[in-house]
């Protein structure tokens, strides 16, 4: 083992751990960790990987139903749409990267969610993007909108998956902290459903895709002592995506899964190599040993911390079916990807890494995957409550309602999104039956069957701000209405919970209430939650303190049309028509 560093506790924060969490770790392993181990635990226990603040709330979600082929816990949820077909779908945020470098931040957001989909054995066939920006008149907002749309368009168009829907809203609370939530859907035959598992003892662990660079390590998380000599300036906080490489990875992965040579597969996303292999080992209930010297690198002199936590894009872990290793390697090599066997599954419960012949990490798999969970006290902000309860009867009705209507219609949140969705290829794959703008949900046909799949993403954050329970429930209801309006039966949802700092009682209250609202609405509508994503600490500076963004629980919903030729769009057809108003 590398030398034990007794002062690590003092800088636990640089690894994303509180001193108390550090003590938990020491207790769990019966010794002091080394810096690499502390960093690995810090990454695995982060909100992004470990959901330490949000998981306890998720118990409220309904997650089962006859239509659910795969519920939460895998790379993506999967629903049965009939005739042996399934749809894998999930939504994920790339908020912080997009605020720093909008083009690449948004592009790699698309890349990441697509990998989650094809890791399930599904061919990605639609993307939706839900975007929130600040004041529409500010130059920074224009820069961000243009960059984010450019990034999504660049990645999605190039890889050839249509972007078929989404939403764009503007509100000052997102001025510093734009939200970029991307949802993807994929189609699979039931028998091709793949899982993120290491399988059984003796299985090989195969690294495939791009080489590993120092991407995504420039954040403030680490003190420079833990990283190699590369200067801070050269350590990019941004990752650059390559849709061309991802296309190769997609085709190679699907070919391998369909050939039946894959026992387990997972994408390397946040916390890269570590989180993917840790989670796969945990699902198998087994230990692994990997040799970090074998990881393909893009730069020389990379050290274990960098190899483990790099967030270089377009990389996957594949576990071959025993006895068919060579078949898998040959198949992958054809696509000119870097392919290396870097480790093996073993009959113990440890997560072991070696480097230059030394064991540099030896931790229990379970400890890594079982982050401490926090349940906090939520308290509604008195200020927001007052706004909600404000008596509106005294507000004067404007005289010229026509002018008000024009004002409303010209607000960028309400105005046509054509300039945005025209920059996305929404027709590639020739399945898009209801295109953006034609309805509030997109409809795609399933080639080889008469069915259609519908998808939408929705959330009205102003409503959630005023009443997080009702607002979040309303987002689910709106999504269901949007599906019903194209003629689809809603099946299930994925969610993306974008909130402020959960340590603030007011924010925690919003999170709690919103989750309960989603859960109750999903129960009522029989649309279980099959997956989701959490993005916390979204805040902006007001005077000398931080204020949370409007709470934004984005809902992505998927539905099915038994006969895709029977569908509806929102345009008035050749009249005369009678218009009806439904509902209360």
């Amino acid at each position, binding site marked *: 083992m590398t030398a034990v560093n007794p002062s690590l506790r003092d800088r636990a924060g640089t690894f994303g751990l509180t001193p108390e969490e550090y003590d938990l770790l020491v207790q769990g392993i019966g010794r002091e960790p080394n810096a690499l181990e502390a960093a690995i635990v810090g990454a695995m226990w982060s909100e992004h990987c470990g959901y330490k603040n949000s998981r306890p709330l998720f118990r409220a979600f309904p997650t089962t139903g006859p239509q659910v082929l795969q519920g939460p816990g895998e790379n993506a949820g999967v629903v049965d749409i009939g005739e042996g077909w399934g749809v894998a779908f999930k939504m994920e945020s790339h908020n912080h990267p997009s605020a720093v470098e909008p083009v690449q931040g948004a592009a790699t957001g698309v890349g990441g969610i697509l990998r989650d989909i094809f890791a399930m054995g599904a061919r990605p066939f639609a993307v939706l993007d839900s975007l929130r920006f600040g004041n529409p008149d500010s130059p920074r907002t224009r820069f961000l909108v243009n960059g984010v749309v450019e990034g999504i368009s660049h990645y999605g*168009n190039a890889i*050839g998956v249509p972007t078929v829907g989404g939403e764009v809203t503007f509100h000052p609370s997102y001025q510093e902290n734009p939200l970029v939530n991307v949802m993807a859907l994929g189609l699979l035959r039931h028998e091709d459903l793949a899982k993120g598992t290491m399988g059984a003892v003796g299985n090989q662990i195969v690294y495939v895709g791009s080489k590993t660079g120092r991407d995504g390590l420039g954040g403030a998380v680490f003190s420079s002592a833990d990283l190699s000599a590369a200067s801070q300036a050269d350590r990019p906080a941004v990752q650059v995506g390559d*849709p061309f490489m991802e*296309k190769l990875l997609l085709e190679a992965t699907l070919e391998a899964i369909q050939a039946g040579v894959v026992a387990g597969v997972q994408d390397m996303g946040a916390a890269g190599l570590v989180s993917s292999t840790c989670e796969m080992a945990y699902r198998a209930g087994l230990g692994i040993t990997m040799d970090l010297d074998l990881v393909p690198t893009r730069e020389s002199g990379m050290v274990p911390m960098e190899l483990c936590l790099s967030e270089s894009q377009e990389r996957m872990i594949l576990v071959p079916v025993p006895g068919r290793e060579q078949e898998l390697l040959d198949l992958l090599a054809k696509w*000119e990807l870097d392919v290396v066997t870097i480790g093996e599954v073993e009959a113990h419960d440890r997560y072991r890494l070696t480097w230059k012949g030394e064991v540099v990490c030896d931790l229990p798999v379970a400890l890594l995957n079982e982050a401490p969970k926090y349940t906090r006290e939520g308290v509604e902000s008195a200020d927001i409550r007052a706004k909600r309860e404000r008596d509106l009867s005294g507000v004067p009705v404007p005289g010229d309602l026509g002018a008000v209507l024009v004002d409303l219609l010209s607000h960028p949140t309400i105005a046509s999104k054509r300039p945005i969705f025209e*920059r996305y290829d929404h*027709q*590639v794959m020739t399945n898009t039956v209801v*295109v953006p703008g034609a309805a509030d949900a997109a409809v795609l046909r399933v080639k080889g069957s008469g069915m259609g799949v519908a998808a939408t993403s929705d959330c009205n954050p102003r409503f959630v701000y005023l009443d997080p329970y009702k607002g979040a429930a309303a987002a689910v209801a709106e999504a269901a209405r949007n599906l019903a309006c194209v003629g689809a039966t809603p099946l299930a949802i994925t969610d993306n919970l974008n909130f402020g700092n959960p340590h603030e009682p007011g924010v925690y209250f919003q999170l709690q209430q919103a989750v309960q609202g989603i859960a109750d609405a999903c129960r009522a509508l029989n649309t279980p939650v099959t997956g989701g994503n959490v993005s916390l600490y979204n805040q902006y500076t007001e005077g000398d303190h931080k204020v949370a963004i409007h709470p934004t629980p984005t809902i992505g919903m998927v539905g099915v049309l038994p006969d895709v030729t029977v569908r509806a769009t929102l345009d008035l057809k050749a009249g005369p028509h009678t218009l009806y108003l439904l509902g209360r």
Partner: protein
Amino acid sequence: MKTAVIQFPGSNCDADALHAARLTLDPDAQFVWHTEAGLPEGTELVFLPGGFSYGDHLRSGAIAARSPIMAAVKEHAERGGFVLGVCNGFQVLTESGLLPGALSRNRDLHFHCAPVHLRVENHQTAFTGAYEANQVLEIPIAHGEGNYYADPETIARLEAEGRVVFRYMDNPNGSLNDIAGIINEDGNVLGMMPHPERAVELLLGSEDGLGMFESLKVGVVK
């Protein structure tokens, strides 16, 4: 009509092209991988599909134009075989010299995906025989680099020889003379930015692309 759809590693309309070709021209249409040295025996039509053949790094189509299969495509064209290049396929054709000119970034620098209206400027080609003179078609575009450029002499020649086959009614990208599609001197190689393979089924909005495939089919039977 025996059809081969060329697949570059970053092609992404390859499956769409194959689907349309099988629906309209040849139930046995096949993919041909870019590293192949030759086309399948008896190939009559080579379909260069849209996409981002090599990530479209450098310039669209630039690297694809230099791949092994393109030598075979050139021979096929020289023997009088039909070649249809759509979108990125058009870019590959100009980059490989099978068609004159070049395609550069759209005037507003943005990618555009939308249905556009095209006028059939020459309905007496093997690709357009099923259309009427000056017929207006609705066919989708989806590209970021479709701005056709050639030097003035080349443009004048194309116009004089009736080789501008399709013209935009409302130019979406800045193309000179509103050019949407052109044909070579011998009339067997056609490149166009709009996607006829996306317009062969009413379910997806338009059937106006069908005429191209019907023209080719009839032409061969004739």
